[in-house]
């Protein structure tokens, strides 16, 4: 066991992947000499050389498109998209090519690309640096989408993503890059597409992923002071979603709150709520609630505290499903 920040754990996972498979290579802007703008790839270029750690031209579509060609030639490219908001120039290559090539070739071609994308807000930055675009990709058949919430998962899930023969979008919760945790570099990981119950409870199921898992655990801790027992689930995988774990929990608690930073409309919370309503209908004591980013462009830094779900907004929704007084009590517009 060794204590690592989440960013360093990802770096350790990359190093291990480069060591274990000489067909793994890293591509991205500023990942070489600089070590990436978040220093995740610090030192890897010196260790593995410029053919395996490639500072690419400033062109996201180029990065992903050439990674596809490398895949045809048997390479496993791990591409870094510098910030969430910079992924859109590569959108066409991702959804029209990466996602569909295996099907288009009747399974003859695998596209084992991993796209690393720092995502999410609450870092006080400027436009395009705080977005949560996961729903676009989870919606696209052919892509796997995962996101770790802690250093151990960051390390293990990255290695699994790189080893997978499917393309995996690996969203990194950048506001948690400096969160420290014990990492067992030899740990046998749980399956990549399994969710984890990170805190058990009996009254409400609180479903979170990535950067908001820590907030959800805090919310559960605070709710315990009011004798509300919250079960927190870290989804880890967003496509597919481990609905068995979700279903077991909701059938136990009868109440569910889903949280994410991405906007509410068309977000994953809606999909999760729909499946829960289908599979847990007769266990539901209250309608599933969502606590999400607002349906607006990610706001300027001084407003982001209002955009990013926090403990209080989560517990307000918990109050709603518990039938306790909440901000919408008496709200006739519902």
């Amino acid at each position, binding site marked *: 066991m060794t204590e690592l920040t989440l960013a360093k754990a990802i770096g350790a996972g990359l190093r291990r992947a480069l060591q274990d498979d000489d067909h793994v290579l890293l591509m991205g*802007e*500023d990942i*070489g*000499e*600089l*070590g990436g*703008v978040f220093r995740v790839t610090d030192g890897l270029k010196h260790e593995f050389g410029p053919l395996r750690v490639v*500072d*690419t*031209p*400033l*062109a996201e*579509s*180029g990065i992903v498109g050439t990674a596809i060609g490398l895949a045809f030639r048997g390479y496993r490219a791990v591409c870094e998209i510098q910030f969430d*908001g*910079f992924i*859109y*120039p590569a959108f066409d290559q991702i959804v029209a090519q990466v996602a569909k090539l295996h099907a288009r070739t009747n399974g003859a071609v695998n596209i084992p690309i991993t796209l690393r994308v720092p995502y999410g807000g609450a870092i*006080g*930055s*400027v*436009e*395009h640096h705080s977005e949560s675009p996961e729903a676009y990709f989870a919606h696209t058949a052919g892509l796997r989408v995962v996101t770790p919430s802690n250093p151990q998962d960051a390390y293990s899930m990255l290695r699994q993503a790189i080893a997978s023969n499917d393309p995996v979008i690996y969203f990194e919760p950048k506001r948690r890059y400096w969160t420290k945790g014990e990492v067992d570099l030899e740990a046998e990981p749980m399956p990549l597409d399994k969710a984890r119950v990170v805190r058990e409870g009996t009254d409400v199921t609180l479903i979170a992923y990535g950067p908001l898992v820590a907030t959800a655990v805090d919310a559960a801790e605070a709710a315990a002071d009011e004798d509300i027992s919250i079960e927190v689930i870290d989804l880890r995988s967003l496509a597919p979603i481990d609905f068995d774990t979700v279903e077991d929990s909701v059938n136990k608690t009868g109440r569910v709150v889903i949280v994410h930073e991405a906007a*509410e*409309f068309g977000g994953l919370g809606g999909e999760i709520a729909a499946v829960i309503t289908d599979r847990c209908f007769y266990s539901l004591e209250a309608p599933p609630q969502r606590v999400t980013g*607002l*349906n*607006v*462009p990610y*706001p*300027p*830094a*001084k*407003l*982001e505290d*209002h*955009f990013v779900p926090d403990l*209080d*907004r989560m517990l*307000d929704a918990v109050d709603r499903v518990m039938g306790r007084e*909440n*901000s*919408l009590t008496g*709200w006739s*517009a519902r």
Partner: protein
Amino acid sequence: MRTGVSEKTQPTAVSVDAEADLPVQLLSPTGIRVESVEYDSWVEDLSDEDLLAIYEDMVVVRRFDNEATALQRQGQLGLWPPSLGQEAAQIGSARALRTDDFVFTSYREHGVAYVRGVKLEDMTRVWRGTANSGWDPFTVNMATPAVIIGAQTLHATGYAMGVQRDGADSVAVAYFGDGATSQGDVNEAMIFAASFKAPVIFFCQNNQWAISEPVGVQTIRPIADRAPGFNIPSIRVDGNDVLAVMAAMRVALERARAGSGATFLEAVTYRMGPHTTSDDPSRYEDLAEREEWAAKDPIKRFEAYLESLGLLTDSVRASVKAAEDDAAKRFRAACIALEDPAPLTIFDHVYAEPHSGLERQKREFAAYLSYIEGGTR
């Protein structure tokens, strides 16, 4: 000026034609006026007052930029992308524009914004995080900065297509960096501009770095060489020579106004600071190169030239010093005084027309804010 498809298209040409790659220069790095048959006439109208005004602009913008960097270090700005070292490229080109020309820039063009009339504190609103936008584009005929690399080149081209349709002789200018030339958008913009003969100027500040990547990652040949392939003539100009930049810009503007279409300018300059205040150039920069460029500082060079003309008297120096001190002081106070926006403004300006879904969310959120301690602050 290079025009059209040139003799440089021999199939065996892989090395760079060194002489042709020498940028246009009217001032040597030590401030000595270099004669140019082709370009002298484009700046001969500049009076002493004009020269001193250009000088003051460059000094004030550098001071402002340094002040903004300091404010970021002091926690007053979230982030800041310094323009240090690029003052000549920005002031020289922007001062060649007419009011009715329209500018689309990246996020480092503080000198351009200053010349267009943007208030200094307005330039810092987005970096302080108090607003989505620092100014109204139509009041200064300059769009607010594009952060997505290269996207604005297409916008400028489209604006120029509109000018064409209006029968006007205004010009659209796209400012971008060397890194942006790798983006598909920039190449697509040149294709559109060439195909439609749009009155647009592609003004590339090659500051040698895209964050940590030297320009060599984006291109082997000079960037200016790329445009002729699109049938867009290009000029490679010394970006630290404010006179040469202004001359080249005037040439390009004249072409555009005359209906001859787009021009590509590569202003060869140097990013003397970090990419942004979050960056650490010590990890990648070449110290010898940095020193070499420090000797080509655009302000020192112009200062030496003005001195040689006997224009920098003590009273001029004092007045410029007073102007930069005053600008810095007023800017610092105004920046710190920028207020945090009210919470519910988060819902403003998402749509131009009423939107039932957003209005409902706004009402619910307002109910939440009035319910939670401190919510309305």
